[in-house]
């Protein structure tokens, strides 16, 4: 995991061993998933819904930007790096320029630290390697709860 502008030095993670210990989301957080891979879309949507999160899925960065431009708000935006039409880095820059008040988290299959750092510099709060796991979602929920 790479930490970005929103990171705190006093992070703590609540490790989860099994599905029955998942955190109950009573905050009604909304999540936007931007990824062009139908497999990843399905996985991320399922993972997030298990935590009681409301999920919307788009297949490229432009659709993510357009949604926010037209007034949709999300607590969390999970964004892939490589997408057609508009990639994750460009979409992140646009979202930041719009002043979107969301935790923006990159979820990429790029494993080189250099590439992850380049993605971070677009304005991400965090960057995870795919695939999303229960631990990572728990971490993000803790961050969302802190900010709210």
């Amino acid at each position, binding site marked *: 995991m790479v930490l970005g502008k929103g990171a705190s030095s006093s992070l703590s993670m609540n490790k989860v061993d099994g599905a029955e210990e998942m955190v109950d989301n009573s905050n009604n957080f909304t999540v936007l998933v931007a990824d062009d*891979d139908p497999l990843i879309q399905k996985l991320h949507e399922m993972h997030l819904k298990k935590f009681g999160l409301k999920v919307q899925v788009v297949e490229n960065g432009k659709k993510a930007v357009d949604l926010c431009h037209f007034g949709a708000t999300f607590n969390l935006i999970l964004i892939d790096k490589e997408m057609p039409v508009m990639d994750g880095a460009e979409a992140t820059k646009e979202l930041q320029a719009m002043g979107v008040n969301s935790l923006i988290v990159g979820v990429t299959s790029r494993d080189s630290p250099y590439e992850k750092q380049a993605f971070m510099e677009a304005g991400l709060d965090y960057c995870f390697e*795919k*695939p999303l796991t229960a631990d990572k979602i728990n971490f993000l929920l803790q961050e969302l709860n802190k900010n709210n």
Partner: protein
Amino acid sequence: MERNPMRRQLAVMRQSLFDQGYLDEQFVQLEELQDDANPNFVEEVVTLYYRDSARLILNVEQALERKPFDFNKLDGYMHQFKGSSSSIGAKKVKAESTLFREYCKSGNGEGCMRTFQQLKKEYATLRKKLEAYFQLARQAGPMETACHPK
């Protein structure tokens, strides 16, 4: 312990997929997402994987027929394929993908071709094993029925 012989057989089959290195922890993550509302989630995801990755396999095959090799393009296709394979816990397939990418980075065409043949074998083997596993799972029925006979 499973009383139902079919469920025991299913459990043995499942364990062997992990013991023989075909699957890793990510497959368990998929299983944990399956529930009564989505009882076939794992099979749906695996089906989606084989449907989508077929396109990538074809892309690599076609790219390997063109000389000289475009290693950037090959690496790009394999990067996507590796990501998908990783998402379903396809351990051996992922390992071959990683090796293929290393050969791309070092510009080793022979290595790419050799590794791609091995990758296709692992990909096909896993598919057969998972198909057999899901077929048995369907026959064995839901866990609750098996564990709590009427």
